[in-house]
């Protein structure tokens, strides 16, 4: 802690003049880890594939695939490691322990999980631990990206060591004062206690402890855990239920002016002219009307026409009143059907099967999907002559800051980016699109821009999960599956965020301006190969991704390639089992490569009463999955009495995350994964018409509501038996997805092929492209 800017804000505020500064800087014990790299590799490589050992039938064993050895989470753990010493954990004189977390809390519960690690190792009550997102900190390099289900994985090898070392330092200082040995002392609830009854709070020890050299301390043995592994309420739960939690648009930034905007009538469309600027500028409360032109570094800025006003109500009215002539976008005339045709044509042909083989083939389509987080795209940006300040929910704040600095022609050191907890993200906030726009408007108006997208544009005009076509062939020879081939053509995934800073982002964007840059292609293939695997021994097993250069706005999505790829494989697995006249669960137990996958399947088969009698029109379905070092299985019950409107009525899920931190959060992520599966398999898909989605809100895009979520959901968390910690944000989607699709097939006799499966009501009340709906109840 050599630089004043490294001090936590409260210390600076207390500090006052220069003279006091050296005292103030020692007021807090701020802990930086010396060398996490040595510990970071512990556990890596432990989780290697163990091929099935005993089997009654001869099975063509698949060699372990890339993901068994190295997955995208490992890459994020490794990329994060070198700058972990810059992450700040401090103990205040009030005894509060504060972590400046270089990640975005978006509901996934990482702040609570990290706080539990700290409370566990430091023996402080959870209520004394504060975790907030750090501002963008460019010196963290690759260590400020939230994604890939990697956050808890990145911190599990590091944070307990930091916390244990901080505790050791506080205890050592107390021991020094009392002329005792540290081993004589114990800690209870943030109080160091001597055998003779003397005691001192962490808060009273922190200044002195900061003068001691770094001790080396070992984290606790898991057998001593009291907090880790126990059901723990979210840190911010009380703020949420009382309405006090502040999201981006709730930030008390004085004079931040409400701004809404209109976006083109097609994705990547253009503004040709605004035909009534003067009229709209004269409307009540309107401050300015700004045309946002193309531009932007790393990724292109979205274009449109913004209206700044005194209130959002007036900004919305004025935005609706704008008369704008729009120009076509890059996908004029495109529809779902034309996109699928382009993708189908791009998929290379499947291999011809050997003579005498039985083949199971299928072609699958996945409609584009929208992240539709409850909090729409938004940002507050204050651009001054020589500085800028940003408030937004950012999964990649460093590159957002760097790109904004470049857009504004400011040095990076003149830009501050505050990372605000977001109302969901699901991958959407890997890019900083609203920041680009708000920065432009702030600079153009000389005011602080508080930009909010309308929900309709949030769905139609922002980034999508890429639509996909899968072609699959499984080959059975002499009673055994000998090969499995899956070719996936998808609209290219924009990965130009790189690892969250400009070096890797610029590589991803190279050559500049290309919609499918070579760099982006490399990232996309890397992410695919390190995320998507197969849990089965299917002999020669391949999944090949062909990104197709259609100029859509895309971005990662929870399990972006994995959920479709693995859903398809689970469907084909059921079809193979049926062709071989073997029960789907028995078949999986025979063909699963890894014992932990078999264990979760056995759990759900029992708890979910696999094979029980079902009424006519109902069926059970099963799915198994492995992702991010987690193993999951799911059995659902589906009501398909109306095959066009199926409904999941029960779900039994087992999950093995190696080392469970917060069972409450794990169960919540499984619920979220189940809802994603219900959405993407049954109900929710976008309809592209003339280069833009029709859907304008949740009444068109059928994200599940209360009535769609089964009343009977059981989540079984496998105990900690010493396996490496797994990711949790994404692994919960694919097993339920497979289970629902397979239940649909068993209940209806229809092969699930085109997703979403349920009939989609025609949309008749959508506002015309390029327009916003009127406020209030839809007619």
């Amino acid at each position, binding site marked *: 802690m050599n630089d004043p800017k490294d001090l936590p804000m409260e210390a600076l505020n207390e500090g006052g003049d220069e003279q006091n500064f050296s005292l103030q800087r020692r007021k807090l014990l701020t802990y930086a880890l010396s060398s996490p790299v040595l510990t970071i590799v512990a556990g890596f490589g432990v989780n290697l594939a163990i091929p099935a050992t005993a089997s009654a039938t001869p099975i063509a064993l698949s060699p372990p695939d890339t993901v068994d050895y190295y997955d995208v989470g490992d890459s994020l753990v490794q990329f994060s490691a070198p700058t972990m010493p810059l992450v700040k954990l401090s103990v205040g004189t009030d005894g509060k322990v504060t972590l400046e977390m270089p990640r975005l809390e978006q509901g996934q519960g990482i702040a609570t999980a990290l706080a539990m690690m700290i409370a566990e190792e430091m023996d402080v009550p959870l209520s004394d631990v504060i975790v907030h997102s750090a501002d963008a900190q460019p010196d963290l390099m690759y260590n400020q990206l939230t994604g890939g289900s990697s956050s808890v994985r990145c911190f599990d090898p590091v944070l307990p060591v930091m916390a244990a070392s901080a505790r050791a330092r506080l205890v050592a200082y107390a021991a020094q004062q009392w002329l005792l040995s540290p081993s004589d002392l114990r800690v209870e609830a943030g109080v160091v206690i001597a055998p003779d009854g003397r005691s001192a709070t962490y808060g009273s020890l922190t200044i002195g402890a900061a003068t001691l050299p770094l001790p080396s301390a070992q984290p606790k043995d898991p057998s001593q855990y009291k907090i880790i592994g126990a059901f723990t309420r*979210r840190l911010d*739960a009380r703020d949420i239920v009382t*309405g006090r939690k502040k999201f981006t648009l709730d930030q008390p930034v004085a004079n931040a002016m409400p701004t809404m905007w209109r976006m083109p009538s097609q994705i990547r469309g253009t503004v040709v002219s605004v035909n009534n600027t003067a009229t709209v500028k004269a409307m009540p409360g309107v401050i300015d009307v700004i045309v946002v032109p193309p531009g932007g570094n790393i990724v292109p800025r979205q274009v449109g026409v913004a209206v700044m006003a005194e209130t959002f109500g007036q900004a919305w009215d004025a935005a609706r009143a704008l008369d704008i002539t729009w120009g076509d976008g890059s996908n004029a005339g495109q529809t779902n059907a034309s996109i699928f045709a382009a993708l189908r044509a791009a998929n290379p042909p499947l291999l011809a099967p050997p003579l005498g083989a039985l083949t199971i083939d299928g072609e699958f389509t996945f409609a584009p999907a929208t992240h539709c987080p409850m909090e729409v795209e938004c940002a507050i940006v204050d651009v001054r002559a020589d500085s800028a300040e940003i408030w937004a929910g950012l999964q990649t704040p460093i590159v957002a800051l760097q790109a904004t600095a470049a857009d504004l022609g400011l040095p990076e050191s003149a830009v501050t980016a505050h990372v605000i907890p977001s*109302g969901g993200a699901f991958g959407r906030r890997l890019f900083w699109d609203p920041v680009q726009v708000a920065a432009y408007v702030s600079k153009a108006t000389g005011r602080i821009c508080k930009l909010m997208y309308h929900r309709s544009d949030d769905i139609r005009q922002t980034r999508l999960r890429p639509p996909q076509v899968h072609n699959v062939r499984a080959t059975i020879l002499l009673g055994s599956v000998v090969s499995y081939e899956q070719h996936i053509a998808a609209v290219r995934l924009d990965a130009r965020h790189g690892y969250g800073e400009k070096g890797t982002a610029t590589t991803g964007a190279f050559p500049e301006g290309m919609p499918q840059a070579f760099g982006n292609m490399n990232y996309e293939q890397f992410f695919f190969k390190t995320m998507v695997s197969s849990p089965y021994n299917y002999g020669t097993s391949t999944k090949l991704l062909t990104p197709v250069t259609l100029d859509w706005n895309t971005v990662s999505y929870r399990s972006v390639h994995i959920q479709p790829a693995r859903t398809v494989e689970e469907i084909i697995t059921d079809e193979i089992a049926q062709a071989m006249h073997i029960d789907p669960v028995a078949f999986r137990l025979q063909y699963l490569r890894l014992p932990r996958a078999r264990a979760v399947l056995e759990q759900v088969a029992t708890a979910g009463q696999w094979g029980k009698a079902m009424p006519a029109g109902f069926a059970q379905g099963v799915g198994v999955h492995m992702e991010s070092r987690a193993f999951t299985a799911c059995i659902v019950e589906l009501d398909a009495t109306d095959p066009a409107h199926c409904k999941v009525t029960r779900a039994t899920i087992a999950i093995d995350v190696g080392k469970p931190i917060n069972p409450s959060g794990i169960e919540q992520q499984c619920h979220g994964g189940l809802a994603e599966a219900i959405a993407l398999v049954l109900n929710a898909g976008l309809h592209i018409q003339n280069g833009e989605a029709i859907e304008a809100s949740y009444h068109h895009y059928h994200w599940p509501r209360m*009535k769609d979520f089964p009343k009977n959901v059981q989540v079984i968390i496998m105990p900690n038996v010493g396996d490496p910690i797994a990711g949790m944000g994404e692994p919960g989607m694919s097993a339920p997805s497979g289970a629902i699709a397979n239940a649909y097939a068993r209940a209806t006799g229809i092969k699930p092929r085109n997703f979403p499966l349920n009939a989609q009501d025609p949309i008749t009340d959508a506002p015309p492209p390029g327009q916003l709906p009127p406020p*209030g109840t839809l007619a």
Partner: protein
Amino acid sequence: MSKYSFTLNGAAVTVDAPGDMALLWVLRDKLGLTGPKYGCGINVCKACTCLLNGKAITACSTKISAVAGKKVTTIEGLANGDTLHPVQQAWLDLDVPQCGFCQCGQIMAAVDLLARTHNKPTDADIDAIENVCRCATYGRIRNAIKLAATKMP
């Protein structure tokens, strides 16, 4: 612009606003209450649910002129000092929220449901709640409503 007076969380307030301005923007932009959230603006997602004379409404789709002289309760006015409303407490006991963005609306919808059903909500009553939760806290919301129903005075 006209002046509109109403009771907000037990206190009398008067605002100067166009009569057709949505209550949501009066609350957020003029009165600084940020518990009710914008999610759609067209009475679809229900994230802005508040109580008007004790009944659930969506503030995005209620004009300020329709509020004059009435009682508005937002999430900020639900607790009694530090004592949470039984619905809020049930939300804490079962650790319902994930991101939290929709939860103010969810809680207000639940308060309204308990009032309408005299604290005996059926599963069908709960199914009829249309508030969207993108994180999918629905399972815990259902259980929390049932728990709160047993704790209502």
